[in-house]
């Protein structure tokens, strides 16, 4: 458990910076909701002036600003999913490869620990960090909703809208984690991981704007946790859930397989 403990401890600082930054942001957004709600009609008039593509891109067409949940799904959810994914990818992408690029792997692997244990403990540390990250963010969100003063929040929907970002973060983290087993330089892994997140986000925007390109939604994890779908249907599409779980399983398995056979110091 030494590696797990070490990674958990090492992740603390970044974890709380990201949590406070994102939590603070969503809390701030939710605290302006009452003012929005007061001027609902004017806002809807205003929305009509926006190009349709933009309304689609941000799910405004489906959700509208008329409930706190909808308001959150349009404004706050974006921060949590996009920036949270960036954090998750950076966290997980560095996990394995940093031991090699910092050349500490020679120290670590001279201890009685197997390579599989190293990978599994590091993956577990990433998972725990992301669970804590999302749990704390959800608590802050919940407080934000209280401030927003919406009389009642559907707890099922709220749970789903809190769970979905966790799944998304875990998906991107798993991809970055798997990737990092194949490289030796941390900087490269971080760049590629970030590119994957940003590209996925871009694809999800394109897929929601253009009907022609809507098939692209299958390749972007952002679509798997589409807030409009979750709020309207009060569920996460099972097929997307399965895809995300498969990405996680395959990525971590690939990381283990590769790491077991890798020449670690050259």
């Amino acid at each position, binding site marked *: 458990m*030494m590696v797990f403990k*070490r990674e958990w401890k090492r992740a603390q600082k970044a974890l709380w910076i990201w949590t406070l930054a994102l939590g603070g942001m969503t809390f701030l957004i939710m605290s302006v909701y009452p003012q929005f709600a007061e001027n609902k009609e004017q806002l809807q008039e205003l929305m009509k002036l926006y190009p349709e593509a933009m309304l689609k891109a941000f799910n405004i067409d489906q959700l509208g600003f008329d409930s706190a949940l909808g308001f959150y799904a349009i404004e706050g959810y974006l921060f949590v999913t996009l920036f949270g994914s960036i954090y998750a990818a950076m966290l997980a992408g560095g996990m394995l490869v940093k031991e090699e690029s*910092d*050349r500490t792997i*020679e120290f670590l*692997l001279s201890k*009685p620990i197997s390579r599989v244990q190293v990978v599994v403990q590091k993956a577990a540390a990433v998972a725990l960090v992301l669970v804590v990250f999302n749990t704390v963010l959800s608590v802050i969100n919940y407080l934000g909703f209280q401030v927003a003063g919406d009389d009642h929040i559907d707890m099922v929907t709220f749970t789903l809208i809190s769970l979905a970002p966790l799944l998304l973060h875990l998906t991107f983290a798993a991809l970055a984690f798997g990737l990092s087993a194949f490289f030796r330089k941390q900087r490269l892994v971080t760049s590629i991981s970030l590119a994957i997140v940003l590209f996925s986000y871009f694809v999800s925007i394109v897929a929601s704007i253009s009907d022609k390109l809507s098939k692209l939604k299958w390749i972007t994890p952002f679509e798997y946790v589409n807030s409009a779908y979750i709020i309207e249907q009060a569920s996460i599409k099972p097929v997307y859930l399965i895809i995300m779980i498969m990405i996680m399983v395959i990525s971590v398995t690939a990381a283990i397989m590769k790491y077991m056979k890798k020449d670690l*110091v050259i």
Partner: protein
Amino acid sequence: MNAIELNHLTKRYGKARGIEDVTFQVAQGEIFGFIGPNGAGKSTTIRTLLNFLYPTSGTAKILGKDVVTEAKNLRQHIGYLPSEVHYYDDMKVSELFRFSAGFYPGDSSKHALELAERLQLDTSRKIEDLSFGNKKKVGIIQALMHEPQILILDEPTAGLDPLMQSIFFELLRELQQKGTTIFFSSHYLSEVQKLCNRVAIIKDGRMIKIENMEDLHAKKFKKVHLHFQNKWDQKIRLEGVLQENVTDNSYEFIYNGHTRNLLEQLVNIQFDDVTIEEPSLEEIFMHYYEKEAGENDGL
């Protein structure tokens, strides 16, 4: 049972030179020197023994166990000091020892503190603030702290001052008396001479020779540089000269033989200045071993 056993171990990778068909055994309780110039394959061999690298072919065993299939179990019994020590920069020395101790049964961090005292290392400092020599001490301590049966040290003395080096050698001798097998690499012949029972010599990824130190002691080498103020006659022939380099006002050579004989011969030469020093291992390789290897090939 041999403590360490390599059978036709070969590791090739990319453009970097690996090792080719390396075979030797280290007996239990032996101090075994592994010497060769930079890039000869010393670290590659050691890293393959520790299973950081997978062998291309051949096998290696430590304490009778295969280094690949039983890597994890073996590490319990091995203390390893890498040639370049890199640790987690954010840790203090004492934190690193605690972290290290956590992998082994019992509490070895106490022993680490004793060793730190002996090597005069301040454990309250951050690792990233330490000098190269002090980082090396951290490396030595984390390799010794769990009292392993086998010590594998990759250029352990680089960066240590002479005082520390002698404390370190004292430690190694004590460990040998307790039965620890010590395998260490170096490119300084003088280091090896003081400490080892046997040495293996590696060059360009291949084993050249394994020698008992007693045999090697009989072969003493000196690097001699004679300086002449004026042009000299260049007709001196000395006994035991292996390789010479003659210019108008200097004569440089590697001498092999008894030092007293060297001095007796030098008395007759009208030089203006002389330096006599230990040759680097490379210099001996270049001339002595290379020649010998050639002869063995029937050239």
